[in-house]
């Protein structure tokens, strides 16, 4: 990725391996994510893509190799600290918080940094009121920016599937993270919803120019359309990487992955 060297690296990992028992879910992964760039990770089911995310967000500790985020080595950190450093993610199966409304789901992302104590909360003191207003304004602003404000009072899990996916993304974006990791955002959507999602993501790229995005996706059209750079994974190994046009003409990829798609 010579052309990106002048930009800051948001995330990079060297020789990353993750074994479960004897299974190598991630094998010697080297990945650099520069600022403001969208990177796609594609590959068949079981290629270890979600495992990569789980290592980056510190749900798993890698077997070997190093990960650094925003210039800092995060090997010894836990999920909470990297999240607070500006790594946001969505999940493969929607994991919105069931007991909360759309607005509250978005507010929750801001809550850990809220500047009032439990004592101030129970006595309903002025600082709490001020902070709550700030959090609510920020959440509403993000929802409005993403055109989701008409749903803010609905219970999050009562929305249609496609909208839930967007709320999940809004929830991740509200903290203005440095890196957004999307895990199969288009899974389970119908073609029309996929188009909406692509527009939605393009809109996000416009709105947050400094934001780096990682996308795991099966749908080639979406990845080709959005990403600046693509990694192709198979059985934990990177079998190819390059720009979308390079990937589309790469013979290994065509054989391993795109070929299957054509047969369908």
């Amino acid at each position, binding site marked *: 990725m010579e052309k990106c060297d002048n930009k800051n690296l948001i995330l990079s990992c060297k020789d990353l391996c993750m074994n479960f028992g004897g299974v190598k879910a991630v094998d010697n992964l080297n990945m650099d994510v520069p600022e403001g760039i969208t990177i796609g990770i594609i590959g068949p089911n079981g290629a270890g893509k979600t495992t990569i995310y789980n290592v980056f*967000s510190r*749900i798993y500790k890698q077997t070997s190799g190093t990960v650094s985020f925003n210039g800092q080595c995060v090997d010894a950190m*836990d*999920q*909470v600290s990297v*999240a*607070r450093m500006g790594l*946001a*993610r969505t*999940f493969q199966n929607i*994991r919105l*918080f*069931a*007991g*909360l409304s759309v607005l*509250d789901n978005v*507010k*929750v*992302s801001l*809550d*850990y*940094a*809220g500047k*009032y104590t*439990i004592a101030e*909360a*129970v*006595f*309903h003191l002025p600082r*709490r009121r001020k*902070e*709550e207003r700030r*959090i609510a304004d920020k959440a509403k602003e993000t929802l409005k920016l993403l055109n989701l404000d008409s749903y803010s009072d609905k219970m999050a899990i009562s929305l249609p599937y496609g909208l839930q996916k967007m709320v999940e993304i809004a*929830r991740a974006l509200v*903290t203005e993270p440095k890196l957004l990791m999307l895990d199969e955002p288009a899974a389970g959507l119908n073609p029309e919803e996929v188009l909406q999602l692509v527009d939605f993501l393009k809109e996000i790229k416009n709105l947050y120019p400094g934001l780096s995005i990682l996308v795991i996706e099966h749908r080639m059209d979406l990845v080709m359309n959005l990403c600046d750079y693509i990694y192709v994974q198979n059985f934990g190994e990177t079998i190819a990487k390059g720009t979308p046009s390079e990937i589309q003409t790469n013979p290994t990829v065509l054989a391993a992955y795109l070929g299957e798609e054509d047969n369908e």
Partner: protein
Amino acid sequence: MNNYQLGLIMNSCISVIEVVSVFIITSLAGMFSLGQAAFMTISAYLTFVLAKMLHLPIILTAAIGLGMSGLCAYIIAVPTLRLRKDYFTLITMGFGEMMASIVVMLEKYTKGSIGFSSIPKVKSIFWIIVATTIAVIFFAWQLKRSRFGRMCIALKTDETAAKSFGIDVYHLKIKVYVIASCISGLAGILYGLKNRVITPDGFSWNLSAEMQIFLFFGGTNSLTGAVISAFGLKLLPEMLRNLTLFGVNMQEYRTVIYCLLILLVINFRPEGMLGDKEMSPSRMVRAMKRRLKREKS
């Protein structure tokens, strides 16, 4: 109202305070504690025994009692909340048993299972209890609506997702558990002041279980539901006083009736009577309007 009726209301209020503490632990943070009665034991005994032995004012010893409740909760929470949920439930239950036997062990100071009764009479105890109950409900309500409440509900639904939004699940749980245990302790002190005698049996394991039953009956996520059911179900045995079944007074069946109620609720209305909903005046007005509209059309 006569003394008997005032007594019933005071009992119900104390039960409301207990259930609010369990509400904070279970409905907000998703933990299942079976040892809340133990914190009532700690606070009540420390408050009254110290007050008698050292001739200190009750308000001071009560502060010591509440502090001790919080400290014990902290000691239990630190090793257990790192582990899976079941450990927490089992260990709080074990803690309850341990407190009961400590009371018997320290018979010299606590009078053991006969009960400790050197409790001073407090003027206008009724109003103290009612005011405390209202204050506790207000605190819990504010807690639920604050950032802490939201974070708790988030971690209850999905811990992994909550962590990925920067919520420090472990420390938040500890905080919430300590606060709730202090509230339980408060209920213990009020119980002592009202009954003027405390026994280890009064704070038994069954009381901890009863709180959970009241909570689930009212609605697993509804503070108002929990408050109403705690108040009402505590009065229920009094309504059964004059009924007999198989020659046994129905009051004897109190626990059985509670349990049958909760089994029915779990089977047919798993989210409890009020479910997620809170009852507030504005909501009730809206519901009334809807109903009027329906009747007109």
